[in-house]
């Protein structure tokens, strides 16, 4: 029998424990028919008070309906079903605000949103997922770079009892782009009349996404990076809740720096954001410095961002404002993604070169199997899901709940159908921003505002010594045949004499991050 003890669901014999993440945006409820018990942890929805956590006795027939209703919950949720003398089942919702990693030993299933909690279960390097990371061809799947640790992907069901099996759901079908109902007329400067309906639909979609959860504007900060995606969401939030939503960002270095500062200033001047604006300057804050958890050997997940340390600092500043929710522009790229068949430029951009000189024989052999065993199409794109599950743990550690409106079905289904000229170069977001009276410069930045320059400087100054350490002391990646030390040494030697090439050399980030994670996680 399960009971709620005020912070966890526990079994009377003390062997079972489920501890929901305590947060105002999260609630939990449970029901039992005396034999079967269902525990549900879910994001709250707008317009409903938080649900009591106590285990509710229900009729057996109602328990089946409770499970069916849980499947329909429109935001993130997790359903755990216990049946005496049967394997337990855990099913994730279609919307993933957080990851859930699973591992088991001696008949006990362990799970956490923090992969480091499961460090002791990592057995060895899993070459397929490790290769995906090393070549930067991410795929949403139940795999992780470590055997013994699994990811419960969206709508997947984990069945555990003796062994753990994770079953994928059916694919979500997506609409293809097609024409708009109204004929658009070119009115110059790339703008068209008749396009207002698209912008209205975009605004409606953002509002529906924001209203899916009980957002408290004064306890919510939005990313305002200067990017078109966070800009689109943030400006709409400021228009809806004038003067209440504060903003936060990292300030980049490189050619886009002054432009980012200028454009953000204009957005904040013309649109009624909250008075507080957190700007963490990345100048003189190279990655892999002495304060970096990876360098210190802490068990950071290999999925954690290279900018993990900086985001952790920014998250702490956001929480110090009294906020408990962060709204991002994550998923905006995927909403208006342009396919290779639609654009020669897109095809060129997506052309990938996996012939990295440092790849070992096992990684080279694994490349062609990268799509084996991946999750079926979800409502949100695989990269959106992976990104959402990547940014969540550092936010949760700061007490912040992530909200990604672009991952909402309303915006995804709109983006799926929009014709090419609304998605090309994010025309949707650019035109949306223009409706706020922002300048051409603010809506159409000429320079790229990016962390590329920070990554380059970080690799050349702090990264190369870490690569030298790999060559000097060895690495689990070399032992696993995933990294070829001779190729890696040649690359390091090259970097001393030739120009840094972003498309190739930036992938050394993955070598460093995975090496550090393997050292920290593996026995």
């Amino acid at each position, binding site marked *: 029998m399960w009971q709620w003890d005020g912070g966890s669901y526990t079994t009377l014999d003390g062997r079972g424990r489920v501890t929901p993440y305590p947060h105002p945006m999260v609630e939990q409820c449970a029901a039992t028919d005396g034999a079967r018990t269902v525990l549900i942890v879910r994001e709250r929805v707008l317009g409903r008070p938080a649900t009591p956590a106590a285990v509710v006795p*229900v009729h057996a027939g109602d328990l089946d309906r409770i499970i069916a209703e849980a499947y329909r919950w429109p935001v993130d949720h997790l359903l755990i079903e216990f049946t005496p003398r049967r394997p337990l089942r855990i099913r994730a919702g279609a919307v993933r605000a957080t990851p859930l990693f699973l591992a088991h030993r001696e008949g006990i299933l362990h799970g956490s949103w923090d992969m480091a909690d499961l460090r002791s279960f990592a057995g060895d390097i899993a070459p397929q997922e490790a290769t995906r990371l090393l070549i930067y*061809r991410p795929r949403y799947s139940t795999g992780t770079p470590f055997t013994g640790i699994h990811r419960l992907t969206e709508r997947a069901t984990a069945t555990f009892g003796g062994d753990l099996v994770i079953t994928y759901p059916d694919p979500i079908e*997506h609409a293809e782009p097609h024409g708009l109902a109204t004929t658009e007329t070119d009115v110059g400067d790339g703008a068209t009349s008749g396009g207002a309906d698209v912008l209205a*639909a975009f605004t409606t979609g953002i509002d529906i996404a924001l209203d899916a959860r009980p957002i408290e504007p004064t306890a919510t900060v939005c990313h305002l990076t200067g990017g078109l995606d966070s800009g689109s969401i943030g400006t709409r939030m400021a228009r809806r809740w004038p003067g209440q939503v504060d903003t936060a960002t990292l300030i980049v270095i490189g050619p886009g720096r002054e432009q980012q500062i200028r454009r953000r200033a204009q957005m904040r001047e013309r649109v009624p954001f909250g008075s507080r604006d957190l700007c963490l300057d990345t100048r003189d804050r190279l990655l892999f410095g002495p304060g970096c958890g990876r360098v210190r050997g802490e068990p950071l997940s290999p999925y954690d961002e290279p900018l993990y340390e900086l985001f952790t600092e920014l998250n702490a500043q956001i929480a110090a404002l009294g906020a408990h929710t962060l709204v991002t522009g994550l998923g905006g790229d995927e909403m208006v993604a342009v396919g290779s068949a639609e654009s020669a430029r897109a095809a060129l951009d997506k052309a990938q070169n996996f012939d990295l000189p440092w790849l070992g024989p096992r990684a080279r052999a694994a490349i062609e199997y990268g799509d084996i065993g991946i999750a079926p199409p979800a409502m949100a794109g695989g990269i959106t899901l992976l*990104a959402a599950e990547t940014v969540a743990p550092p936010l949760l550690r700061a007490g912040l709940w992530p909200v990604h409106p672009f991952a909402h079905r309303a915006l995804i289904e709109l983006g799926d159908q929009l014709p090419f000229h609304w998605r090309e170069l994010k025309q949707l977001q650019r035109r949306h921003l223009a409706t706020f009276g922002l300048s051409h410069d603010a809506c159409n*930045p000429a320079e790229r*505002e990016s962390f*590329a320059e920070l990554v380059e400087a970080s690799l050349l100054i702090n990264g190369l010594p870490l690569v030298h350490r790999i060559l000097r002391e060895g690495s689990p990646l070399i032992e696993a045949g995933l990294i070829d030390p001779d190729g890696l040494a040649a690359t390091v030697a090259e970097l001393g004499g030739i120009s840094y090439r972003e498309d190739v050399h930036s992938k050394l980030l993955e070598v460093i991050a995975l090496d550090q994670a393997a050292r920290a996680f593996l026995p």
Partner: protein
Amino acid sequence: MTVTIADYGTFPSAFEAPQEHLPDFAALFDGEARYIVQTPPVRNDYKKASGSSDGAKTYDTTAT
């Protein structure tokens, strides 16, 4: 306090999923949509080639 089945009588509303509010975009488009199953590259798509212009590509930049 012990909650019993009799306290509810009917299906406990806390477990009912709310009606999902979704916009009707049908009038926005010409004709009916054709639906597909996305291929692995499409469903794991990203705007740019590999490389790391923005960390782990989880951050919003103006790169196009």
